[in-house]
Protein backbone atom coordinates (compact mmCIF):
# COMPACT_ATOMS: atom_id res chain seq x y z
CA UNK A 1 0.00 0.00 0.00
CA UNK A 2 2.62 2.55 1.07
CA UNK A 3 4.99 1.25 -1.59
CA UNK A 4 2.30 1.80 -4.20
CA UNK A 5 1.59 5.32 -2.97
CA UNK A 6 5.30 6.13 -3.05
CA UNK A 7 5.59 4.83 -6.61
CA UNK A 8 2.67 7.02 -7.69
CA UNK A 9 4.23 10.05 -6.06
CA UNK A 10 7.55 9.39 -7.80
CA UNK A 11 5.81 9.10 -11.14
CA UNK A 12 3.96 12.33 -10.48
CA UNK A 13 7.03 14.28 -9.45
CA UNK A 14 9.10 13.06 -12.38
CA UNK A 15 6.28 13.97 -14.73
CA UNK A 16 6.01 17.47 -13.31
CA UNK A 17 9.77 17.96 -13.32
CA UNK A 18 9.86 16.72 -16.91
CA UNK A 19 7.89 19.45 -18.51
CA UNK A 20 8.12 22.40 -16.16
CA UNK A 21 11.33 23.89 -17.61
CA UNK A 22 10.41 23.05 -21.20
CA UNK A 23 7.19 25.05 -20.96
CA UNK A 24 8.85 28.35 -21.82
CA UNK A 25 10.03 27.28 -25.29
CA UNK A 26 7.46 24.70 -26.41
CA UNK A 27 4.54 25.92 -28.50
CA UNK A 28 2.30 23.55 -26.51
CA UNK A 29 1.81 23.08 -22.76
CA UNK A 30 -0.80 20.80 -21.24
CA UNK A 31 -1.58 19.23 -17.91
CA UNK A 32 -4.32 17.28 -16.16
CA UNK A 33 -6.56 18.43 -13.34
CA UNK A 34 -5.47 15.28 -11.52
CA UNK A 35 -2.75 12.72 -12.23
CA UNK A 36 -4.24 10.15 -9.89
CA UNK A 37 -7.70 8.62 -9.95
CA UNK A 38 -8.34 6.86 -6.68
CA UNK A 39 -10.83 4.00 -6.92
CA UNK A 40 -12.45 3.76 -3.51
CA UNK A 41 -15.33 1.48 -2.51
CA UNK A 42 -17.77 4.24 -3.45
CA UNK A 43 -16.24 4.80 -6.91
CA UNK A 44 -18.82 5.33 -9.67
CA UNK A 45 -16.64 6.88 -12.33
CA UNK A 46 -14.98 10.27 -12.56
CA UNK A 47 -14.06 13.14 -14.85
CA UNK A 48 -10.55 14.38 -15.54
CA UNK A 49 -9.92 17.73 -17.21
CA UNK A 50 -6.96 18.20 -19.52
CA UNK A 51 -6.08 21.86 -20.00
CA UNK A 52 -3.28 23.64 -21.74
CA UNK A 53 -2.13 26.50 -23.90
CA UNK A 54 -0.60 26.98 -27.33
CA UNK A 55 1.61 29.92 -28.29
CA UNK A 56 -0.51 32.43 -30.12
CA UNK A 57 0.30 31.97 -33.79
CA UNK A 58 -0.83 34.80 -36.09
CA UNK A 59 -2.54 32.45 -38.52
CA UNK A 60 -4.22 29.53 -36.76
CA UNK A 61 -6.50 28.44 -39.59
CA UNK A 62 -4.98 24.95 -39.92
CA UNK A 63 -4.38 24.45 -36.20
CA UNK A 64 -5.76 21.31 -34.56
CA UNK A 65 -5.24 19.84 -31.09
CA UNK A 66 -5.59 16.05 -30.94
CA UNK A 67 -5.63 14.23 -27.58
CA UNK A 68 -5.22 10.44 -27.26
CA UNK A 69 -5.83 8.58 -23.98
CA UNK A 70 -4.41 5.02 -23.73
CA UNK A 71 -4.80 2.60 -20.84
CA UNK A 72 -2.25 -0.05 -19.84
CA UNK A 73 -1.91 -2.80 -22.41
CA UNK A 74 -3.12 -6.42 -22.20
CA UNK A 75 -2.99 -9.45 -24.44
CA UNK A 76 -6.48 -10.26 -25.64
CA UNK A 77 -7.86 -13.38 -27.27
CA UNK A 78 -10.81 -12.83 -29.60
CA UNK A 79 -12.86 -15.99 -30.07
CA UNK A 80 -15.53 -16.66 -32.66
CA UNK A 81 -18.42 -19.04 -32.08
CA UNK A 82 -19.55 -21.49 -34.70
CA UNK A 83 -22.52 -23.83 -34.79
CA UNK A 84 -21.50 -27.45 -34.30
CA UNK A 85 -24.30 -30.03 -34.06
CA UNK A 86 -26.81 -27.38 -33.07
CA UNK A 87 -24.68 -25.86 -30.32
CA UNK A 88 -22.68 -22.65 -30.50
CA UNK A 89 -19.04 -23.38 -29.71
CA UNK A 90 -15.91 -21.20 -29.66
CA UNK A 91 -13.88 -22.26 -32.71
CA UNK A 92 -11.45 -19.82 -34.31
CA UNK A 93 -9.42 -17.44 -32.20
CA UNK A 94 -6.91 -14.64 -32.74
CA UNK A 95 -4.60 -13.30 -30.06
CA UNK A 96 -3.85 -9.58 -30.08
CA UNK A 97 -0.76 -8.63 -28.08
CA UNK A 98 -0.27 -5.28 -26.35
CA UNK A 99 -3.82 -4.05 -26.82
CA UNK A 100 -4.71 -0.87 -24.89
CA UNK A 101 -7.21 -1.62 -22.13
CA UNK A 102 -8.70 1.85 -22.52
CA UNK A 103 -8.82 4.21 -25.50
CA UNK A 104 -10.37 7.65 -25.94
CA UNK A 105 -9.84 10.48 -28.35
CA UNK A 106 -10.54 14.22 -28.48
CA UNK A 107 -9.98 16.86 -31.12
CA UNK A 108 -10.46 20.62 -31.42
CA UNK A 109 -12.22 20.22 -34.76
CA UNK A 110 -14.05 17.45 -36.60
CA UNK A 111 -11.80 15.00 -38.44
CA UNK A 112 -11.66 15.50 -42.21
CA UNK A 113 -10.02 13.55 -45.01
CA UNK A 114 -7.08 15.93 -45.03
CA UNK A 115 -6.32 15.38 -41.33
CA UNK A 116 -6.88 11.66 -41.82
CA UNK A 117 -4.25 11.41 -44.55
CA UNK A 118 -1.62 13.63 -42.93
CA UNK A 119 -1.88 12.80 -39.22
CA UNK A 120 -4.43 10.19 -38.13
CA UNK A 121 -3.45 7.34 -40.45
CA UNK A 122 0.35 7.80 -40.22
CA UNK A 123 0.21 8.09 -36.43
CA UNK A 124 -2.39 5.33 -36.00
CA UNK A 125 -4.89 7.51 -34.16
CA UNK A 126 -8.51 6.40 -33.82
CA UNK A 127 -10.27 3.09 -33.28
CA UNK A 128 -10.16 2.17 -36.98
CA UNK A 129 -6.54 3.13 -37.45
CA UNK A 130 -4.80 2.22 -34.21
CA UNK A 131 -2.18 -0.52 -34.28
CA UNK A 132 -3.48 -3.86 -33.02
CA UNK A 133 -0.93 -6.60 -33.51
CA UNK A 134 -2.32 -10.11 -34.08
CA UNK A 135 -0.13 -13.09 -33.23
CA UNK A 136 -1.57 -15.18 -36.05
CA UNK A 137 -3.16 -13.80 -39.19
CA UNK A 138 -6.10 -15.76 -40.60
CA UNK A 139 -7.78 -14.69 -43.84
CA UNK A 140 -10.59 -12.82 -42.14
CA UNK A 141 -8.42 -10.93 -39.64
CA UNK A 142 -10.44 -7.77 -40.28
CA UNK A 143 -13.54 -9.37 -38.74
CA UNK A 144 -11.65 -10.25 -35.56
CA UNK A 145 -10.14 -6.77 -35.31
CA UNK A 146 -13.55 -5.15 -35.80
CA UNK A 147 -15.04 -7.49 -33.19
CA UNK A 148 -12.33 -6.57 -30.66
CA UNK A 149 -13.04 -2.86 -31.09
CA UNK A 150 -16.82 -3.41 -31.09
CA UNK A 151 -16.83 -5.44 -27.86
CA UNK A 152 -14.50 -2.94 -26.17
CA UNK A 153 -16.78 -0.04 -27.18
CA UNK A 154 -19.79 -1.96 -25.83
CA UNK A 155 -17.96 -2.51 -22.53
CA UNK A 156 -17.20 1.22 -22.31
CA UNK A 157 -13.44 0.63 -22.42
CA UNK A 158 -13.06 2.24 -25.85
CA UNK A 159 -14.84 5.52 -26.51
CA UNK A 160 -16.03 5.76 -30.10
CA UNK A 161 -17.22 9.40 -29.96
CA UNK A 162 -14.41 11.92 -30.44
CA UNK A 163 -14.36 14.37 -27.54
CA UNK A 164 -14.42 18.11 -28.08
CA UNK A 165 -11.30 20.09 -27.27
CA UNK A 166 -12.70 23.57 -26.55
CA UNK A 167 -10.68 26.74 -27.01
CA UNK A 168 -11.14 29.52 -24.50
CA UNK A 169 -10.05 32.49 -26.51
CA UNK A 170 -7.09 32.08 -28.81
CA UNK A 171 -4.56 30.24 -26.70
CA UNK A 172 -6.15 28.31 -23.84
CA UNK A 173 -7.88 24.99 -24.39
CA UNK A 174 -9.52 22.34 -22.28
CA UNK A 175 -11.16 18.93 -22.71
CA UNK A 176 -13.10 16.71 -20.36
CA UNK A 177 -12.59 12.93 -20.19
CA UNK A 178 -15.02 10.68 -18.39
CA UNK A 179 -13.79 7.42 -16.86
CA UNK A 180 -16.59 4.91 -16.11
CA UNK A 181 -16.90 2.81 -12.94
CA UNK A 182 -15.37 -0.29 -14.54
CA UNK A 183 -12.31 1.57 -15.87
CA UNK A 184 -9.20 -0.65 -16.04
CA UNK A 185 -6.58 0.18 -13.40
CA UNK A 186 -2.96 0.96 -14.13
CA UNK A 187 -0.78 3.64 -15.70
CA UNK A 188 -2.36 5.63 -18.50
CA UNK A 189 -0.63 7.86 -21.01
CA UNK A 190 -2.29 10.94 -22.42
CA UNK A 191 -0.75 12.29 -25.60
CA UNK A 192 -1.45 15.83 -26.78
CA UNK A 193 -0.54 16.71 -30.35
CA UNK A 194 -0.47 20.21 -31.83
CA UNK A 195 -0.99 20.04 -35.60
CA UNK A 196 -0.27 23.02 -37.86
CA UNK A 197 -0.35 22.90 -41.62
CA UNK A 198 -0.67 19.12 -41.73
CA UNK A 199 2.29 18.48 -39.46
CA UNK A 200 2.74 17.72 -35.78
CA UNK A 201 4.52 20.83 -34.52
CA UNK A 202 4.62 19.84 -30.89
CA UNK A 203 3.61 16.88 -28.76
CA UNK A 204 3.39 16.30 -25.07
CA UNK A 205 2.77 13.17 -23.03
CA UNK A 206 1.38 13.25 -19.53
CA UNK A 207 0.78 10.28 -17.21
CA UNK A 208 -2.38 9.38 -15.36
CA UNK A 209 -2.48 6.68 -12.72
CA UNK A 210 -5.75 4.91 -11.96
CA UNK A 211 -5.42 2.81 -8.84
CA UNK A 212 -7.41 1.27 -6.06
CA UNK A 213 -7.17 3.10 -2.75
CA UNK A 214 -8.38 2.29 0.75
CA UNK A 215 -10.38 -0.81 1.67
CA UNK A 216 -10.71 -2.03 -1.92
CA UNK A 217 -6.94 -1.86 -2.46
CA UNK A 218 -6.24 -3.57 0.86
CA UNK A 219 -8.57 -6.42 -0.01
CA UNK A 220 -7.10 -6.81 -3.49
CA UNK A 221 -3.51 -6.78 -2.18
CA UNK A 222 -4.24 -9.25 0.60
CA UNK A 223 -6.08 -11.62 -1.75
CA UNK A 224 -3.05 -11.75 -4.03
CA UNK A 225 -0.24 -11.74 -1.45
CA UNK A 226 -1.67 -14.04 1.20
CA UNK A 227 -4.12 -16.13 -0.82
CA UNK A 228 -4.37 -19.00 1.68
CA UNK A 229 -5.03 -16.71 4.66
CA UNK A 230 -7.50 -14.75 2.56
CA UNK A 231 -9.38 -17.95 1.72
CA UNK A 232 -9.40 -19.13 5.34
CA UNK A 233 -10.51 -15.66 6.45
CA UNK A 234 -13.37 -15.69 3.95
CA UNK A 235 -14.51 -19.10 5.23
CA UNK A 236 -14.22 -18.03 8.90
CA UNK A 237 -16.18 -14.86 8.16
CA UNK A 238 -18.88 -16.84 6.38
CA UNK A 239 -19.16 -19.34 9.26
CA UNK A 240 -19.45 -16.50 11.78
CA UNK A 241 -22.00 -14.64 9.67
CA UNK A 242 -24.15 -17.75 9.36
CA UNK A 243 -23.96 -18.37 13.11
CA UNK A 244 -24.66 -14.71 13.94
CA UNK A 245 -27.72 -14.71 11.71
CA UNK A 246 -29.02 -17.79 13.46
CA UNK A 247 -28.58 -16.26 16.94
CA UNK A 248 -30.19 -13.02 15.81
CA UNK A 249 -33.26 -14.81 14.54
CA UNK A 250 -33.58 -17.20 17.45
CA UNK A 251 -33.90 -14.39 20.02
CA UNK A 252 -36.81 -12.80 18.24
Amino acid at each position, binding site marked *: MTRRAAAMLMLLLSALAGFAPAAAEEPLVADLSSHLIAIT*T*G*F*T*GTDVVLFGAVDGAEDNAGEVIVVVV*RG*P*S*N*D*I*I*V*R*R*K*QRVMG*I*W*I*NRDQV*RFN*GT*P*SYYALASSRPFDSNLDATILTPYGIGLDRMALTPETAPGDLG*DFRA*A*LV*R*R*KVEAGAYVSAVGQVAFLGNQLFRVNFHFP*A*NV*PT*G*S*YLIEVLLVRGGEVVSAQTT*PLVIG*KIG*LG*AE*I*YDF*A*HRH*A*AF*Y*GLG*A*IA*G*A*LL*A*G*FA*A*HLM*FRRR
Partner: protein
Amino acid sequence: MQIYLPIAELSSNILLLLVIGGAVGFVSGLFGVGGGFLLTPILMFLGIPPAVAVASQATQVVAASVSGVLVHWNRGNVDFKMGLVLLMGGLTGSSFGVFLFSLLRAVGQVDLVIALAYFITLGGVGGAMMFESVRALLRRRRRPGALRKLHQHTWVHGLPFKMRFRKSRLYISALLPAGVGFVVGMMAAIMGVSGSFVLVPAMIYLLGMPTAVVVGTSLFQAIFVAANVTFLQAVQNQTVDVLLAFLLLVGGVVGAQFGGRASGRLPADIMRILLAAIILTVAVALGYTLVVKPDDLYSLAITAANGKTP
Protein backbone atom coordinates in the same frame (compact mmCIF):
# COMPACT_ATOMS: atom_id res chain seq x y z
CA MET B 1 -26.40 3.02 -4.10
CA GLN B 2 -23.25 1.82 -5.83
CA ILE B 3 -20.31 -0.07 -4.36
CA TYR B 4 -16.99 -0.93 -6.00
CA LEU B 5 -16.17 -4.65 -5.81
CA PRO B 6 -12.37 -4.92 -5.49
CA ILE B 7 -11.82 -8.38 -7.00
CA ALA B 8 -14.58 -8.27 -9.62
CA GLU B 9 -13.22 -4.78 -10.46
CA LEU B 10 -16.55 -3.13 -11.16
CA SER B 11 -19.27 -1.18 -9.41
CA SER B 12 -22.62 -2.71 -8.58
CA ASN B 13 -25.76 -1.74 -6.72
CA ILE B 14 -25.73 -2.68 -3.02
CA LEU B 15 -29.52 -3.09 -2.75
CA LEU B 16 -29.68 -5.27 -5.85
CA LEU B 17 -27.00 -7.62 -4.48
CA LEU B 18 -28.79 -7.79 -1.10
CA VAL B 19 -32.11 -8.65 -2.76
CA ILE B 20 -30.53 -11.30 -5.00
CA GLY B 21 -28.76 -12.83 -1.99
CA GLY B 22 -32.01 -12.82 -0.02
CA ALA B 23 -34.07 -14.44 -2.76
CA VAL B 24 -31.51 -17.18 -3.40
CA GLY B 25 -31.06 -17.65 0.37
CA PHE B 26 -34.80 -18.19 0.74
CA VAL B 27 -34.78 -20.88 -1.94
CA SER B 28 -31.70 -22.39 -0.29
CA GLY B 29 -33.34 -22.60 3.15
CA LEU B 30 -36.61 -23.85 1.69
CA PHE B 31 -35.22 -26.76 -0.31
CA GLY B 32 -31.86 -27.38 1.34
CA VAL B 33 -29.97 -26.65 -1.85
CA GLY B 34 -26.89 -24.41 -1.82
CA GLY B 35 -28.40 -22.11 -4.41
CA GLY B 36 -25.16 -21.89 -6.40
CA PHE B 37 -26.86 -23.12 -9.55
CA LEU B 38 -29.18 -20.07 -9.36
CA LEU B 39 -26.70 -17.50 -8.07
CA THR B 40 -23.87 -18.10 -10.54
CA PRO B 41 -25.98 -17.48 -13.68
CA ILE B 42 -27.61 -14.40 -12.08
CA LEU B 43 -24.23 -12.87 -11.14
CA MET B 44 -22.85 -13.55 -14.60
CA PHE B 45 -25.91 -11.82 -16.04
CA LEU B 46 -24.99 -8.74 -13.93
CA GLY B 47 -21.62 -8.64 -15.71
CA ILE B 48 -19.54 -10.14 -12.92
CA PRO B 49 -16.79 -12.34 -14.41
CA PRO B 50 -17.78 -16.07 -14.23
CA ALA B 51 -14.66 -17.03 -12.24
CA VAL B 52 -15.40 -14.36 -9.61
CA ALA B 53 -19.12 -15.26 -9.56
CA VAL B 54 -18.44 -18.96 -8.97
CA ALA B 55 -15.80 -18.37 -6.28
CA SER B 56 -17.64 -15.65 -4.36
CA GLN B 57 -20.96 -17.46 -4.32
CA ALA B 58 -19.20 -20.45 -2.76
CA THR B 59 -18.31 -18.22 0.21
CA GLN B 60 -21.91 -17.09 0.41
CA VAL B 61 -23.12 -20.70 0.32
CA VAL B 62 -20.98 -21.47 3.42
CA ALA B 63 -22.80 -18.80 5.43
CA ALA B 64 -26.26 -19.63 4.10
CA SER B 65 -25.72 -23.33 4.81
CA VAL B 66 -24.52 -22.71 8.40
CA SER B 67 -27.53 -20.52 9.07
CA GLY B 68 -29.84 -23.08 7.46
CA VAL B 69 -28.34 -26.13 9.13
CA LEU B 70 -28.78 -24.58 12.60
CA VAL B 71 -32.51 -24.18 12.01
CA HIS B 72 -32.76 -27.85 11.02
CA TRP B 73 -30.48 -28.94 13.85
CA ASN B 74 -32.79 -27.34 16.42
CA ARG B 75 -35.61 -29.41 14.98
CA GLY B 76 -33.41 -32.53 15.10
CA ASN B 77 -33.46 -32.88 11.33
CA VAL B 78 -29.74 -33.39 10.65
CA ASP B 79 -28.31 -36.89 10.25
CA PHE B 80 -24.66 -36.18 11.12
CA LYS B 81 -23.55 -39.77 10.58
CA MET B 82 -25.03 -39.78 7.09
CA GLY B 83 -23.55 -36.30 6.48
CA LEU B 84 -20.04 -37.47 7.40
CA VAL B 85 -20.22 -40.51 5.13
CA LEU B 86 -21.45 -38.29 2.28
CA LEU B 87 -18.66 -35.82 3.02
CA MET B 88 -15.93 -38.47 2.86
CA GLY B 89 -17.12 -39.40 -0.60
CA GLY B 90 -17.49 -35.70 -1.43
CA LEU B 91 -13.93 -34.72 -0.57
CA THR B 92 -12.52 -37.62 -2.61
CA GLY B 93 -14.83 -36.75 -5.49
CA SER B 94 -13.93 -33.06 -5.49
CA SER B 95 -10.20 -33.87 -5.56
CA PHE B 96 -10.82 -36.09 -8.58
CA GLY B 97 -12.99 -33.32 -10.08
CA VAL B 98 -10.15 -30.79 -9.79
CA PHE B 99 -7.90 -33.22 -11.67
CA LEU B 100 -10.60 -33.70 -14.33
CA PHE B 101 -11.01 -29.92 -14.60
CA SER B 102 -7.32 -29.36 -15.40
CA LEU B 103 -7.52 -32.14 -17.97
CA LEU B 104 -10.51 -30.47 -19.65
CA ARG B 105 -8.75 -27.10 -19.62
CA ALA B 106 -5.72 -28.63 -21.34
CA VAL B 107 -7.98 -30.03 -24.07
CA GLY B 108 -9.83 -26.66 -24.33
CA GLN B 109 -13.54 -25.89 -24.34
CA VAL B 110 -13.88 -25.98 -20.57
CA ASP B 111 -16.65 -23.34 -20.75
CA LEU B 112 -18.68 -25.51 -23.07
CA VAL B 113 -18.24 -28.58 -20.87
CA ILE B 114 -19.43 -26.58 -17.85
CA ALA B 115 -22.49 -25.29 -19.71
CA LEU B 116 -23.32 -28.76 -21.04
CA ALA B 117 -22.79 -30.31 -17.59
CA TYR B 118 -25.20 -27.78 -16.11
CA PHE B 119 -27.78 -28.39 -18.81
CA ILE B 120 -27.62 -32.18 -18.68
CA THR B 121 -27.60 -32.55 -14.89
CA LEU B 122 -30.15 -29.84 -14.20
CA GLY B 123 -32.39 -31.03 -17.04
CA GLY B 124 -32.09 -34.68 -16.03
CA VAL B 125 -32.58 -34.15 -12.31
CA GLY B 126 -35.35 -31.57 -12.74
CA GLY B 127 -37.17 -33.66 -15.34
CA ALA B 128 -36.98 -36.87 -13.30
CA MET B 129 -38.12 -35.11 -10.13
CA MET B 130 -41.00 -33.39 -11.87
CA PHE B 131 -42.16 -36.64 -13.48
CA GLU B 132 -41.85 -38.59 -10.22
CA SER B 133 -43.59 -36.07 -7.98
CA VAL B 134 -46.45 -35.32 -10.36
CA ARG B 135 -47.08 -39.05 -10.80
CA ALA B 136 -46.98 -39.61 -7.04
CA LEU B 137 -49.35 -36.72 -6.48
CA LEU B 138 -51.84 -38.00 -9.06
CA ARG B 139 -51.67 -41.56 -7.77
CA ARG B 140 -52.32 -40.44 -4.20
CA ARG B 141 -55.28 -38.33 -5.28
CA ARG B 142 -56.80 -41.27 -7.11
CA ARG B 143 -56.38 -43.90 -4.42
CA PRO B 144 -56.26 -42.11 -1.11
CA GLY B 145 -56.34 -45.22 1.06
CA ALA B 146 -53.67 -47.26 -0.73
CA LEU B 147 -50.81 -48.41 1.47
CA ARG B 148 -47.22 -48.06 0.23
CA LYS B 149 -44.51 -50.51 1.18
CA LEU B 150 -41.89 -48.80 3.36
CA HIS B 151 -39.15 -49.68 0.90
CA GLN B 152 -38.29 -52.30 -1.64
CA HIS B 153 -35.30 -54.64 -1.38
CA THR B 154 -32.99 -54.51 -4.39
CA TRP B 155 -29.37 -55.44 -5.22
CA VAL B 156 -28.36 -52.23 -3.43
CA HIS B 157 -29.16 -53.84 -0.12
CA GLY B 158 -26.74 -56.65 -0.77
CA LEU B 159 -23.68 -54.35 -0.73
CA PRO B 160 -21.13 -54.77 2.09
CA PHE B 161 -20.21 -52.34 4.94
CA LYS B 162 -23.76 -51.98 6.18
CA MET B 163 -24.35 -49.13 8.59
CA ARG B 164 -27.28 -48.06 10.66
CA PHE B 165 -28.39 -44.45 10.19
CA ARG B 166 -30.85 -43.87 13.05
CA LYS B 167 -31.98 -40.38 12.07
CA SER B 168 -32.73 -41.48 8.52
CA ARG B 169 -34.25 -44.78 9.72
CA LEU B 170 -32.02 -46.63 7.27
CA TYR B 171 -29.81 -49.71 7.42
CA ILE B 172 -27.81 -49.57 4.20
CA SER B 173 -24.29 -50.03 2.88
CA ALA B 174 -22.01 -47.06 3.60
CA LEU B 175 -20.73 -47.41 0.01
CA LEU B 176 -24.02 -46.02 -1.31
CA PRO B 177 -23.97 -42.58 0.38
CA ALA B 178 -20.18 -42.39 -0.10
CA GLY B 179 -20.65 -43.03 -3.83
CA VAL B 180 -23.37 -40.39 -4.05
CA GLY B 181 -21.04 -37.98 -2.23
CA PHE B 182 -18.24 -38.78 -4.66
CA VAL B 183 -20.31 -37.99 -7.77
CA VAL B 184 -21.66 -34.78 -6.21
CA GLY B 185 -18.18 -33.70 -5.08
CA MET B 186 -16.83 -34.23 -8.58
CA MET B 187 -19.61 -32.11 -10.03
CA ALA B 188 -19.00 -29.46 -7.40
CA ALA B 189 -15.38 -29.13 -8.49
CA ILE B 190 -16.19 -28.95 -12.20
CA MET B 191 -19.29 -26.76 -12.08
CA GLY B 192 -18.41 -24.65 -9.05
CA VAL B 193 -21.59 -25.44 -7.14
CA SER B 194 -22.17 -27.26 -3.87
CA GLY B 195 -24.08 -29.87 -5.86
CA SER B 196 -27.08 -30.00 -3.55
CA PHE B 197 -29.53 -29.94 -6.43
CA VAL B 198 -28.22 -33.39 -7.34
CA LEU B 199 -27.64 -34.50 -3.76
CA VAL B 200 -31.17 -33.75 -2.49
CA PRO B 201 -32.99 -35.88 -5.11
CA ALA B 202 -30.31 -38.59 -4.80
CA MET B 203 -30.88 -38.76 -1.05
CA ILE B 204 -34.65 -38.95 -1.50
CA TYR B 205 -34.85 -41.41 -4.38
CA LEU B 206 -31.56 -43.34 -4.28
CA LEU B 207 -30.96 -43.62 -0.54
CA GLY B 208 -34.63 -43.45 0.45
CA MET B 209 -34.09 -40.91 3.23
CA PRO B 210 -37.10 -39.11 4.77
CA THR B 211 -37.51 -35.66 3.14
CA ALA B 212 -37.43 -33.83 6.48
CA VAL B 213 -33.92 -35.14 7.28
CA VAL B 214 -32.65 -34.72 3.72
CA VAL B 215 -32.66 -30.91 3.77
CA GLY B 216 -30.70 -30.50 7.01
CA THR B 217 -28.19 -33.21 6.12
CA SER B 218 -27.63 -31.81 2.64
CA LEU B 219 -26.99 -28.33 4.10
CA PHE B 220 -24.55 -29.86 6.61
CA GLN B 221 -22.38 -31.37 3.91
CA ALA B 222 -22.76 -28.27 1.67
CA ILE B 223 -20.91 -26.20 4.33
CA PHE B 224 -17.76 -28.26 3.89
CA VAL B 225 -17.91 -28.63 0.12
CA ALA B 226 -18.46 -24.87 -0.35
CA ALA B 227 -15.67 -24.07 2.15
CA ASN B 228 -13.36 -26.33 0.14
CA VAL B 229 -14.29 -24.58 -3.12
CA THR B 230 -13.76 -21.15 -1.49
CA PHE B 231 -10.29 -22.10 -0.27
CA LEU B 232 -9.16 -23.65 -3.56
CA GLN B 233 -10.45 -20.71 -5.60
CA ALA B 234 -8.79 -18.18 -3.27
CA VAL B 235 -5.43 -19.95 -3.45
CA GLN B 236 -5.37 -20.90 -7.13
CA ASN B 237 -7.18 -18.05 -8.87
CA GLN B 238 -7.57 -15.20 -6.34
CA THR B 239 -11.16 -14.82 -7.52
CA VAL B 240 -12.99 -14.71 -4.17
CA ASP B 241 -14.48 -11.23 -3.79
CA VAL B 242 -15.16 -10.96 -0.06
CA LEU B 243 -17.13 -7.75 -0.44
CA LEU B 244 -19.44 -9.33 -3.02
CA ALA B 245 -19.70 -12.48 -0.90
CA PHE B 246 -20.46 -10.39 2.20
CA LEU B 247 -23.34 -8.52 0.52
CA LEU B 248 -24.75 -11.75 -0.89
CA LEU B 249 -24.50 -13.52 2.46
CA VAL B 250 -26.12 -10.71 4.44
CA GLY B 251 -29.14 -11.10 2.16
CA GLY B 252 -28.60 -14.86 1.98
CA VAL B 253 -28.55 -15.71 5.70
CA VAL B 254 -31.69 -13.67 6.32
CA GLY B 255 -33.42 -15.31 3.35
CA ALA B 256 -32.28 -18.76 4.48
CA GLN B 257 -33.87 -18.22 7.91
CA PHE B 258 -37.24 -17.47 6.36
CA GLY B 259 -36.81 -20.29 3.86
CA GLY B 260 -35.95 -22.76 6.62
CA ARG B 261 -39.07 -21.81 8.51
CA ALA B 262 -41.31 -21.95 5.45
CA SER B 263 -40.03 -25.42 4.52
CA GLY B 264 -41.87 -26.96 7.50
CA ARG B 265 -45.19 -25.51 6.37
CA LEU B 266 -45.26 -26.76 2.80
CA PRO B 267 -46.31 -30.34 2.01
CA ALA B 268 -43.32 -32.45 0.90
CA ASP B 269 -44.68 -33.35 -2.54
CA ILE B 270 -45.52 -29.74 -3.37
CA MET B 271 -41.97 -28.79 -2.34
CA ARG B 272 -40.52 -31.40 -4.67
CA ILE B 273 -42.60 -30.10 -7.58
CA LEU B 274 -41.52 -26.52 -6.85
CA LEU B 275 -37.85 -27.44 -6.67
CA ALA B 276 -38.17 -29.47 -9.88
CA ALA B 277 -39.80 -26.46 -11.59
CA ILE B 278 -36.97 -24.13 -10.53
CA ILE B 279 -34.28 -26.57 -11.64
CA LEU B 280 -36.02 -27.15 -14.98
CA THR B 281 -36.35 -23.39 -15.58
CA VAL B 282 -32.61 -22.87 -15.11
CA ALA B 283 -31.86 -25.88 -17.35
CA VAL B 284 -34.13 -24.58 -20.13
CA ALA B 285 -32.62 -21.07 -19.87
CA LEU B 286 -29.09 -22.50 -20.08
CA GLY B 287 -30.01 -24.85 -22.92
CA TYR B 288 -31.51 -21.92 -24.82
CA THR B 289 -28.24 -19.96 -24.66
CA LEU B 290 -26.37 -22.98 -26.03
CA VAL B 291 -28.66 -23.48 -29.00
CA VAL B 292 -29.80 -20.00 -29.99
CA LYS B 293 -27.49 -17.87 -32.15
CA PRO B 294 -25.63 -15.46 -29.84
CA ASP B 295 -26.04 -11.69 -30.37
CA ASP B 296 -22.33 -11.41 -31.02
CA LEU B 297 -20.39 -14.40 -32.27
CA TYR B 298 -17.17 -12.91 -30.97
CA SER B 299 -16.05 -12.80 -27.35
CA LEU B 300 -12.96 -11.36 -25.67
CA ALA B 301 -10.71 -12.90 -23.06
CA ILE B 302 -7.87 -11.02 -21.40
CA THR B 303 -4.99 -13.46 -21.12
CA ALA B 304 -2.24 -11.38 -19.51
CA ALA B 305 -2.34 -7.95 -17.99
CA ASN B 306 1.31 -7.30 -18.65
CA GLY B 307 1.13 -3.96 -16.89
CA LYS B 308 3.22 -2.13 -19.47
CA THR B 309 2.15 1.35 -20.44
CA PRO B 310 1.56 1.83 -24.15
